[in-house]
């Protein structure tokens, strides 16, 4: 779906979420802890919500939200992000997008 492709290719970390989704919130908190400011798309506020969900599932997400993209590439859902972080691979991945501390 074009919209999804466009949104997910935005610079930096992109999170597809829903306003009620608590795991999306958890992922946001984690990125903020790492000094990253992700772009959040709350798809339940989007008229094309259903389409977006289907598109995300087709891309390989087991649950449509949260779906995390870094630099246009799909990383996965909460599990994948947490696992990456525990293995120490998340920080290098998002390093280019960490906010300058100056």
């Amino acid at each position, binding site marked *: 779906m074009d919209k999804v492709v466009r949104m997910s290719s935005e610079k930096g970390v992109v999170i597809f979420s829903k306003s009620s989704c608590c795991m999306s919130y*958890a992922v946001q908190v984690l990125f903020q802890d790492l000094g990253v400011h992700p772009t959040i798309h709350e798809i339940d506020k989007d008229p094309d919500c259903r389409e977006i969900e289907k598109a995300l599932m087709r891309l390989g997400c087991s*649950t449509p939200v949260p779906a995390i993209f870094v630099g246009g590439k799909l990383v996965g859902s909460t599990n994948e992000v947490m696992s990456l972080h*525990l293995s120490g691979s998340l920080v290098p991945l998002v390093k280019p997008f960490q906010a300058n501390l100056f």
Partner: protein
Amino acid sequence: MNTTSTHFVSSRRFEIYEPLNQIGSMWEESFKNNGGMYTPSSIIIPTNEKPESLSEDTSHGTEGTPHKFDQEASTSRHPDKIQRRLAQNREAARKSRLRKKAYVQQLETSRLKLIHLEQELDRARQQGFYVGNRVDTNALGFSDNMSSGIIAFEMEYGHWVEEQNRQISELRTVLYGQVSDMDLGLLVDNAMKHYFQLFRMKAAAAKIDVFYIMSGMWKTPAERFFMWMGGGFRPSELLKVLLPHFDPLTDQQLLDVCNLKQSCQQAEDALSKGMEKLQHTLADSVAAGKLGEGSYIPQMTSAMERLEALVSFVNQMYRILTTRQAARGLLALGEYFQRLRALSSSWATRKREPT
């Protein structure tokens, strides 16, 4: 000899079990069959001990009329033992019957008490009072709330703990002795598989009753106290418990462990905040009277993803440590939970101070 045997035979005449005319042929029969003891159903008698010796005895004798001779020869050789054994069996049977009677009486009393309690609970519940979670008014059986899937899970978990204890003992024995890295590696692999099996069991049970799993109902109270969000333990806390057991650590390992600890803390922090948000959302739904399934069940099941995040932690530790360190860590972890479980039971049965 003859007198003894006849005396013995005639004393059997006064046995309470059978009239003598039946005993006669049965007695001979049983000597041939099960080693010399007549076995009415209420007596348990070892059947394997005497037959060989008895038949040997009789075979040494003449080839005269077999049956009566067998009987006399065997009873004449061991009349006292047989008497004594019979008496012991009678006594044992009597005691067993008394115990059974007492037990059945106990059961009846408990059953009545239980019915009474359930009625009280029913009354209390109808009036809106808080009533304990696993109790429900379904007479004398498992409550409606506890589905068969959950009951099955609890039973499986019982077996899991037994196997866990066995593995811990094995690890302990092996670590105190000499063991090759390869053999130790096998034990470590088994222990890891065992933990993963528990993760899978919990995930499956969560699909049946997610609140049950999230609140750790199957755990002992002490374990539940330290439990973190239904996952079982907070990885960073666990690292603190386990770290001393890994000594000595190389510099690289120390660095890796520190990084892992920090990542864990950040992940835990994020997940905890997610859980808080979930609880707020749920509480709002309940307050607003919106108890429809669509509004929160998907949320709960997505929260179960945390369990899988913990699996990742275990994998990381496995990657960092040597086999021997992993073995020590697993032993320490197992013993930690054993102590928690023991604490629960000793606490529950402690002597209370008079108030």
